């Protein structure tokens, strides 16, 4: 039976390291912005002056299709 104590300690040390690092940074004053769905859509598909990420959306769709086909191929039953 493996003991979990060293791993838990390592993770706690990692989390403390992250938190100390975050609080050592002198963040400029500024609260979080309210981003709307319209902003996301305009960044994603572009405005009249901007191109956006439309091509990448297409490529991500292709990647999802390939992953779907790969998942089906990996999961199907092997014929004897």
């Amino acid at each position: 039976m493996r003991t979990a104590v060293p791993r838990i300690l390592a993770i706690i040390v990692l989390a403390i390291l992250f938190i100390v690092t975050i609080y050592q940074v002198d963040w400029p004053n500024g609260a979080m912005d309210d981003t709307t769905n319209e902003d996301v859509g305009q960044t994603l598909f572009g405005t009249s002056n901007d191109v956006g990420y439309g091509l990448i959306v297409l490529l991500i769709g292709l990647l999802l299709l390939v992953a779907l086909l790969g998942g089906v191929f990996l999961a199907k039953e092997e014929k004897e």
Partner: protein
Amino acid sequence: MIPIEYWLVFSSLLFAIGAYGVMSKKNAIVVLMSIEIMLNAANINFVAFSSYHTTLHGVAEASGQVFALFSIAIAAAEVAVGLGIILAVYRRYQTIDVDKINILRW
């Protein structure tokens, strides 16, 4: 409004929980779920820094949110392939214990 430090601390804790799951759990599906938790921590960082950047510079853009969307899509693809691999391994070896699966060892 919530300061950015809180989001970063939340994301760090989420990442640490995911890293603990990857390091300590033996079930491959639990490991996959832990990897997803770590990816979600990265997505929270994307969105938090994007909102913070928008506030600081006054430019209304949402690149971080868009990259988080891409990351979610890629995570979905990864889960599809990962679950397929786990299924194939289980059919062949009757186990998904990552300590017992050593077929990639050379």
